[in-house]
């Protein structure tokens, strides 16, 4: 039994009762939040795994073409071909609020209006594999950004779930039992005080009676 170190007074009792109500309410709310977060997290993380698998597969294919291009062309040629990129991609980061977790939303923006405008080189002196690799990369990009979005969301939600669960457990197993025990302790202490003051009054009454009227208590209750 964990009793807090406070004075057993009626005021403290009232305060504690209020605190217990708040703690119970907070516990319920946090538990609901944790459950909902967990539900969303599970579906998100499944999506994350699937998406990662496809992206990794596609990247592997693109990388194979890139490796082929690298082996056919000389380093200098490859460097010149890709030195000045055609596209400049930026992302608009928006925040979405899911159960007070701010998860990012990426909105892809290209510099040129035509996003298929990806080849920064002429086709005459480059390997065909390079074209395929570049095309593949540009095709994967949307999936990759989606993956980044989801994976980051998963990480943020995971840490939020962890801290929420800690708070739920702290309330459930420490705070609330402590409040309950202390309230019980104070109630008992107050009852005890009341009983002791009642007996004291009875004793005093008895003493006064016997002094004034020589009244003798027939039961002998107060004689001892």
């Amino acid at each position, binding site marked *: 039994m964990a009793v807090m170190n406070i004075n057993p007074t009626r005021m403290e009792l009232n305060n504690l009762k209020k605190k217990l109500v708040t703690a119970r309410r907070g516990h319920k709310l946090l538990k609901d939040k944790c459950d909902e977060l967990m539900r969303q997290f599970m579906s998100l993380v499944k999506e994350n795994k699937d998406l990662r698998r496809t992206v990794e597969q596609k990247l592997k294919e693109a*990388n194979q073409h890139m490796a082929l291009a690298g082996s056919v062309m000389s380093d200098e040629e490859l460097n010149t071909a890709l030195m000045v990129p055609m596209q400049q*991609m930026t*992302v608009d980061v928006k925040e979405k609020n899911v159960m007070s977790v701010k998860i990012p939303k990426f909105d892809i923006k290209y510099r040129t209006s035509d996003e298929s405008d990806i080849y920064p080189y002429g086709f005459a002196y480059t390997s065909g594999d390079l074209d395929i690799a570049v095309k593949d990369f540009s095709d994967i990009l949307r999936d990759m950004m989606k993956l980044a979005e989801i994976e*980051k969301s998963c*990480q*943020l939600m995971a840490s939020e779930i*962890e801290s929420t669960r800690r708070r739920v457990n702290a309330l459930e197993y420490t705070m609330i039992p402590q409040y309950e025990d202390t309230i019980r302790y104070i109630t008992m202490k107050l009852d005890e005080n009341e009983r002791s003051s009642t007996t004291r009054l009875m004793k005093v009454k008895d003493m006064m009676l016997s002094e004034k009227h020589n009244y003798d208590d027939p039961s002998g209750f107060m004689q001892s």
Partner: protein
Amino acid sequence: MSSKVGAIGDKDSVFGFKSIGLDVVFANTPEEIQKTIREMADDDYAVIFITEKAASLAESEIDKYRFKPSPAIIPIPGITGNTGEGMKNVSLSVEKAVGSDILKDK
């Protein structure tokens, strides 16, 4: 707010991303990788793609940003193949949230 997207890794693995408009930095040693990550994070990059090989060399640096809102550091397989580093990251999130990895593939 418009942010940039970066890629870090060995030259063969990330050179291709340059053509599609990512900011590509070649880094091979742990020091280079860590420094690049730090610079990109300070420079308001929203997403940093990093090869799994490079990621394994700079884990401590990546861990710093793992639970921050930005940047999102995403490991991708490099030209030498898939090391499973990226999947491990997903499992790590699950483990943190649930307590154990309940979605493990057999």
